[in-house]
């Protein structure tokens, strides 16, 4: 275990780059919402009408969905199912795995199509993956300089204060 066991750390610069990427994907794929989650259910970034949905729940359920599907894949001897697609009456969800640890979620309606979404997702995934690799390299570098955790200086009082109410 290498990347999976480490903490994910994201800095301002990568956050902006990823958000830009998701915004571009949203436009290119004519989607309503584009959303990036990690496999543990933490939301990372999003674009589009994200204030219309409960993004925290969306992130957690997506991760649960992917985890269950991964389990199914292994049961039948597949490494993973890299794409999941849920078709609804109006809205559809396209879910794909990026760089083994992130999940890209695209929600779209009749203004787009599965083919277009798949095409655009493929290109965007490669870009997100590149940023992810850089992010990990940076976290390691900064981590080596002992700066990775904002909690390094945390005191017992800081922690107690969280529960004072």
């Amino acid at each position, binding site marked *: 275990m290498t990347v999976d066991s480490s903490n994910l750390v994201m800095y*301002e610069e990568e956050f902006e780059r990823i958000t830009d990427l998701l915004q571009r994907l949203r436009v290119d794929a004519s989607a309503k919402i584009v959303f990036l989650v990690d496999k*543990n259910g933490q939301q990372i970034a999003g674009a589009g009408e994200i204030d219309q949905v409960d993004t925290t729940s969306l992130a957690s359920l997506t991760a649960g969905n992917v985890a269950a599907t991964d389990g199914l894949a292994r049961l039948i001897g597949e490494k993973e199912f890299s794409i999941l697609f849920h078709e609804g009456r109006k809205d559809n969800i396209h879910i794909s795995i990026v760089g083994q640890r992130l999940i890209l979620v695209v929600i779209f309606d009749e203004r787009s199509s599965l083919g277009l979404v798949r095409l655009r997702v493929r290109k965007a995934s490669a870009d997100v993956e590149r940023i992810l690799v850089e992010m990990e390299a940076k976290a390691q570098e900064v981590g080596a300089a002992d700066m*990775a*955790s904002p909690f390094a200086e945390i005191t017992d009082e800081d922690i107690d204060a969280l529960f004072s109410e």
Partner: protein
Amino acid sequence: MSFINYAAREINVKIVYYGPGLCGKTTNLQYIYEKSNPQQKGKLISLATETDRTLFFDFLPLDLGSVRGFKTRFHLYTVPGQVFYDASRKLILKGVDGVVFVADSQEARMDANVESLRNLDDNLADNGFELKTIPYVLQLNKRDLPSAVSVEEIQRKLVFKGEPSFEAVATIGTGVFETLKAVAKQVLYELRRR
């Protein structure tokens, strides 16, 4: 695996409530949900069967406030306790930062407690964690039941590393926040250590 987001200045951690079937894991989350301020909590999601048994997980996001300018967001999960849902339990432990083991104090459930703890050990190991080192708290639930065995007896069976343990009656909230606070503290200390 915590997620530190410098852009949004927040840190996300994952706590999992583990334990045998019907020990009160979901009840813990329900109580926390009821008693938390609306601005602190997100939706409580329960993926349960028609008879309200947890099928996959319950999920409750909770903001505990700020530490050093970083918002602390705790994602609380429960696992399905029933023995045959083991594959799901393993999945939910992925990326966990801290574990609460909810033990059922009733005498008839002692074997189930021990089996579930052993199962936790195995499933953590499969996810690359060690029960011995992960932030961990023991909750002795259902202390109000007449068939509850003595605290000393359960501790003798379940305590293995001097972990903090709390007596609880989750249905009325006794011990629920004490348990959460204890595990959250350990997780934050662990973050400081890394």
